[in-house]
């Protein structure tokens, strides 16, 4: 029993922190969020050179073959400074390939994910906005061996930057997952302006897109694969959110030490310091749930669904509170576009619904433990 990080994981954290501080300071975040995809191909290639993009990808496909605990370390650090990038989306597409991709599909995409030539993402949600298999209603029409898709996938993260989409649909009642490249005939991406401009979302319009056997993932149990992807999604966004919550807390602690009112830094007043202390208790508690959840992905997968929900439910509500508190504690300047704290508030709004909000996961936990 050892609930600590290895020395290597400590080095990894330092390296990523140094990278994001040097290559993507807040000025660069603000520049990128005004670009079409909030995605910098140069930054992406630099992340690839660092080995960050191939972290979860096995050696044979050009990656480092590391674990989700390592990946969580990376996401905490990229979340801390709100780094705009399709890191989470591509990791989830990677998981789809590792779980259910054919050798040919893996050989085609994984090396390109690892060296930064391609970006992948999940396209699961539909107009019903229901999480999980219950939300997949898109029905394919069969044309011989080909599934023909007509419909929409909504809230697709990094839709504009993605080169390939993992699309879920049904043939009759059977769930299927497939890889659809962005140049597939009949596929169109409609970008939708986002509240958190460091993130991008879009609608995938499928107008007669043809999915052949070579495009379909070969999951023995597609429902289980889908659930795994969503649970990994919970872990990933919780890690990013934890980093962002810690970032917001650090920015606000600095402000509370600097801002003087009534002859003293406002951080001396209990009305201020107690809120910040509560935020810290929340971030530390989230760490405990998150790190364990990440460990279960590689080591004890039967426990993943419960821990993914425990971690995401805590993060979704706590980061919401922390985001609002941190803006409030800044007073009026917190409400200006100039101060960075508002960007953290908006990130909390992005992460709350991603892969299910607090109530969704509390309901899921209740179903697991209470029946």
């Amino acid at each position, binding site marked *: 029993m*050892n609930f600590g990080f*290895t020395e290597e994981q400590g080095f990894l954290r330092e390296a990523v922190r140094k990278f994001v501080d040097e290559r993507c300071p807040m000025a660069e975040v603000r520049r990128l969020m005004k670009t079409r995809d909030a995605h910098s191909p140069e930054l992406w290639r630099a992340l690839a050179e660092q080995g960050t993009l191939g972290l979860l990808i096995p050696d044979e496909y050009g990656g480092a073959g590391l674990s989700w605990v390592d990946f969580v370390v990376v996401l905490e650090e990229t979340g801390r400074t709100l780094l705009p990038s399709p890191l989470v989306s591509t990791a989830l597409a990677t998981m789809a390939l590792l779980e259910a991709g054919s050798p040919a599909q893996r050989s085609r995409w994984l090396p390109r994910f690892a060296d930064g030539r391609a970006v992948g993402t999940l396209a699961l949600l539909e107009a019903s906005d229901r999480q999980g298999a219950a939300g997949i209603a898109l029905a394919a029409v069969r044309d011989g061996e080909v599934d023909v898709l007509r419909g929409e996938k909504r809230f697709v993260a990094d839709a504009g930057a993605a080169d390939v989409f993992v699309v879920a649909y049904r043939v009759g009642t059977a769930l299927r997952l497939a890889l659809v490249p962005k140049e597939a005939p009949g596929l169109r991406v409609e970008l939708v302006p986002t509240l958190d401009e460091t993130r991008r979302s879009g609608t995938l319009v499928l107008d007669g897109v043809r999915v052949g056997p070579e495009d379909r993932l070969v999951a023995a149990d597609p429902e289980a694969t889908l659930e795994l992807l969503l649970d990994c999604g919970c872990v990933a966004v919780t890690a990013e959110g934890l980093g962002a919550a810690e970032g917001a807390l650090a920015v606000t602690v600095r402000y509370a*030490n600097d801002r003087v009112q009534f002859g003293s830094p406002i951080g001396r007043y209990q009305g*201020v*310091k107690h809120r910040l*202390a509560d935020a810290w208790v929340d971030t530390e508690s989230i760490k405990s749930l998150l*790190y364990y959840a990440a460990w279960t992905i590689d080591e004890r997968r039967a426990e993943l669904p419960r821990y993914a929900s425990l971690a995401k439910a805590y993060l979704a509500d706590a980061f919401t509170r922390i985001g609002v508190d941190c803006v409030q504690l800044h007073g009026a300047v917190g409400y200006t576009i100039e101060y960075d704290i508002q960007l953290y508030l908006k990130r909390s709004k992005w992460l709350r619904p991603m892969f299910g909000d607090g109530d969704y996961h509390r309901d899921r936990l209740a179903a697991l433990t209470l029946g």
Partner: protein
Amino acid sequence: MDFNFSPEEQAFREEIRGFLDANLPDPVPDEDPAFLQAWNRKLREKRWVGFSWPREWGGGGGDLIRQFILKEEMSARRAPALGLDFMGLTWVGPAVIKHGTKEQKAEHLEAILDGRSHWCTGYSEPDVGSDLASLQCRAVRDGDEYVIHGQKIWTTSAHFASHIFLLVRTDPTVSKYKGITCLLVPMSTPGITVTPIENLSGKASFNQVFFDGARTPVANRLGAEGEGWKVVMGALANERSGISESTEMQQHLDDIRALAKRAVRNGRPALQDDRVRRRLSEMEIRVEAMRLTGLRHLTDQINGKPSGSETAINKLQRGILEFEMSELSLELLGSEALHQGEIQHDALGWHGTVIGGGSPNIQRNIIAERILGLPKD
């Protein structure tokens, strides 16, 4: 990161389970003093009371991971607490092990493990609560003795305790932290009077303790004169770390789930009520966070990182949980909550862990100042 236990640790877990199967009655007669004494003797034979204390003083000499496993298994089966003298085991004994003389160790440690002593703790005074370092209870050296004058309050268990772990001021001329000394005083000492205070649930759990020229030998001083603050910081850390353990909260969660399973709200089973279900899930989230945070700190301890302010995390979580669980249990009772009863009384019984060991706002000050680096209040 590795949450697997070694084969030896697994075997230890099996040994505990086997012991419980063979020895623990069902239901557990945990109010029966004769049973509790007999149970303690059995645990002493296994050296499971004071599991991590040095063997030369009667402890088990065990490591922290096995201690964790032992507590987890005992709690899962609702076995009585490990040991009978709660304060003796949780902070007085560890303080004596760290700061005590050979004679003090011989006098107190085995007695604590056997449950022959029963310690209480003399910290708070009528004008001194959260600002503990301002305490005024005075001890003046007179030859080989200290003469004690003053008053303590909120002294839990003083009405039946055998000894008091007592903080006194020995030097009023130096800074408030430096003039404090810790004494180990028998409650039978002439000049000590105990007056129980009825608490809001109608029970006498805490007391006023008056010292009117009580004399105790200098040999009963724990640590050097003027070093009492250092002793008490360690003792408070141990008290908070006891409160921070998740095992009891897991039991409370199981209890409230059982209550929810039989409760009816507005003619419908309470477990069909989304709000009840979500509140139970919220509790599950915090209890599990406490358990895993405890494991993170256990790892730190094993790696030699001194445990510090981190216990404040779980102490605050426990406070939130105690309130939430109390209120939900009363709501689940419906109008029965108007009447007296065990659940109703338990719902008012959170003061020991929420206020004891430092109130929630004191924990927040500690975090903000020592960890976040905000200016001192």
